[in-house]
C-alpha cells in the first residue's frame, strides 16, 4: 500500500508543451451587489514552466484566487487568455488540471474514499479500478485507515489530505492549490506543508499555489510571485534557488530568511493598501 514515488500512478512523461501554462493579459472583473464592476485582475501575464512549483502571494482579496480560477477554467476571463500547452482554456480541463480548494470542498455525504473516487467517477473510470486507485491515493497521503470516514469525522488536517488525494488521483499534470492550508492551525500547516512537499517533489507536477503565508511560499516554491493589492499585478518575481529535496531545517538558513525578509518588505505596503479597500 505504501507506494508513492515508485507507484505506477506516478507521473507519466508528457510532451514539453502539454504542461506549460501561459497567462496573457488576463483581466477578471466582478459585479458588486450595488451593480458596479470591480477589477480583480488587470493585465496579468505570466508563464509557468513545466514541473515548476509557483506561488502567488499577496494581500487578501488581491485577485490571486481569480487568477487560479481562470487557469482552472472555473471562470471566464473578461480579457486575455490562459493557455495550457497549445490549448486555450475555455472551461474546466479535468484531464490536465486538478484543484485543491481553500476550504477543501469535500462532499459531506461521501466517505473519504468516495470523495477521492468521485474525481475518477466523473471520468467514467470503471468502479473496481477507481476504488483501487482511490485507496492508493489515500495511502499516499497517509489516510489508508480513514477511507470509510465521512468528512465530519475527520480533522482539518485529514480533510486537507483527502482533498490532496482527490487532486492526485486523476493523475493530472497541473495542480492548482488555492490556500490549501488556509483553514488549518499553524502547527498542522507546517507539518502538512512539509508532507505535501515530500509527496509533490516525487511527482514532478506543475503547480500553482496561492497563499499569504511567507514561510510556506518560500519553503515550497521554485518561484514566488509577489502581487500588488487589487487589481492584481505582479510586483516582483523571486527565484527561490534553494536546492531540493528540502527539509524543514532550511527554514532557519540564511538564504531562506533573506528571501522571506525581502518578500515581507514587498508585501507589507501592499497589505496596508489592501486593508483600506472595501
Amino acid at each position, binding site marked *: 500500500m505504501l507506494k508513492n514515488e515508485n507507484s505506477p500512478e506516478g507521473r507519466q512523461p508528457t510532451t514539453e508543451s502539454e504542461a506549460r501554462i501561459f497567462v496573457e493579459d488576463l483581466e477578471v472583473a466582478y459585479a458588486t451587489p450595488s451593480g458596479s464592476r470591480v477589477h480583480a485582475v488587470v493585465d496579468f501575464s505570466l508563464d509557468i514552466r513545466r514541473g515548476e512549483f509557483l506561488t502567488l502571494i499577496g494581500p487578501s482579496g488581491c485577485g490571486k484566487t481569480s487568477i487560479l*480560477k481562470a487557469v*482552472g*477554467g*472555473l471562470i471566464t476571463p473578461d480579457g486575455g487568455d490562459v493557455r495550457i500547452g497549445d490549448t486555450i482554456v475555455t*472551461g*474546466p480541463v*479535468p*484531464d490536465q*488540471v*486538478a*484543484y485543491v*480548494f*481553500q*476550504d477543501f*470542498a*469535500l*462532499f*459531506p*455525504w*461521501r*466517505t473519504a474514499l*468516495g470523495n477521492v473516487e*468521485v*474525481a475518477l*467517477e*466523473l*471520468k467514467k473510470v470503471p468502479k473496481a479500478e477507481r476504488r483501487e486507485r482511490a485507496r492508493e491515493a489515500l495511502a499516499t497521503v497517509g489516510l489508508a485507515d480513514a477511507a470509510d470516514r*465521512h468528512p465530519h469525522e475527520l480533522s482539518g488536517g485529514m480533510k486537507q489530505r483527502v482533498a490532496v488525494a*482527490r487532486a492526485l488521483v*486523476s493523475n493530472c499534470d497541473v495542480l492548482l492549490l488555492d490556500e490549501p492550508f488556509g483553514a488549518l492551525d499553524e502547527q498542522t500547516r507546517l507539518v502538512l506543508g512539509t508532507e505535501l512537499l515530500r509527496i509533490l517533489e516525487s511527482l514532478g507536477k506543475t503547480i500553482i499555489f496561492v497563499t499569504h503565508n511567507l514561510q510556506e511560499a518560500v519553503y515550497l516554491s521554485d518561484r514566488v510571485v509577489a502581487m500588488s493589492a487589487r487589481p492584481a499585478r505582479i510586483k516582483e518575481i523571486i527565484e527561490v534557488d534553494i536546492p531540493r529535496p528540502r527539509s524543514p531545517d532550511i527554514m532557519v538558513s540564511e538564504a531562506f530568511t533573506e528571501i522571506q525578509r525581502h518578500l515581507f518588505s514587498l508585501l507589507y505596503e501592499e497589505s496596508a493598501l489592501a486593508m483600506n479597500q472595501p
Partner: protein
Amino acid sequence: MTATRLGIYLGVPFLILLAWFLLAISEVVNPFLLPSPIEVARDLGTVLTDSATYPHLWTTLRQVLLAFGLAAALGIGIGLPIGWYRTLRKAYEPVLGMVYAVPLVVLYPVIALFFGIGATSKIVFGALYAFFPIVLATISAVSLVDQNLVSAGRSMGARGATLFRTVVLPAARPRIMVGLRLGIILATLAVVGGQYIAGTSGLGYLLATAGQSFQTVLMFAYIVLTLAFAVLVNGLMAALDHYTNRSLT
C-alpha cells in the same frame, strides 16, 4: 436505556394520559364529552379487531401516498430549476411563498366541484397542501448549495445533468427532506380533513360519522387510530431519509 432516559421519553405521554384519566373519572368534564382512556382503549380494541376498519386505513394511506407522491414530483421538479436560476427564483419564490400563506382549505369546494367527492378530490387536495412546503424547501435547498462544492464538481469535469446528480442534488438533499417531511404531514392533514368534510371512506369519514352520531368513545378511539397513522407516515419518511442518504455514499 437508563431509567432517567426512559422517564424523559415516557414522562410527558404518561402525564397526559394521567391527566386525561383524572379529568374523566372525577367527572369535572362531562363523561359524555370526555370518556375515560380505559373506555377508549376498549373501543379501540373493538375497532382494531373489526375487519371493516382496515379498508378505511388502506384508503387513507393510499390517498396520502398518492397526494404526497404527486406533490413531491411537482414540488421537486419545479423547485430545482427555480432554485438554481437566480432570475427564476427572484420571480417565483415570493409568489409561491404568498400562495402558501393562503388558507388553501377555501379551495376545497372548488376541488370537490371539479373532481367530485370521491378519492380524486382528496388526493388533489392533499397534493395541493403538500406541494408548497416541498417546492419552497427545494428552492431554498438548491439556492443554498455551497458554491465551493459546485466549483469542485466542475473542476473535476461535472456539468449539466451530471453536476446536478453528483453535487447539487446530494448537497440539497437534507433541506429538501425537511420539505418532504412537512409535505407528508400536510398531505395527511388535508386528506383526512377532506374525508371528514365530504367523504365516503377513510379515517376522516370514520371520525365524522362517529362524531355526528354522538358516539364520543368511538370518536376518541378513531382519533387515537389517526394519531397512530400519523406516526406510521412519519416513520415512512424517516425510512425514506435513511434510504436516500445511504444510497449516496
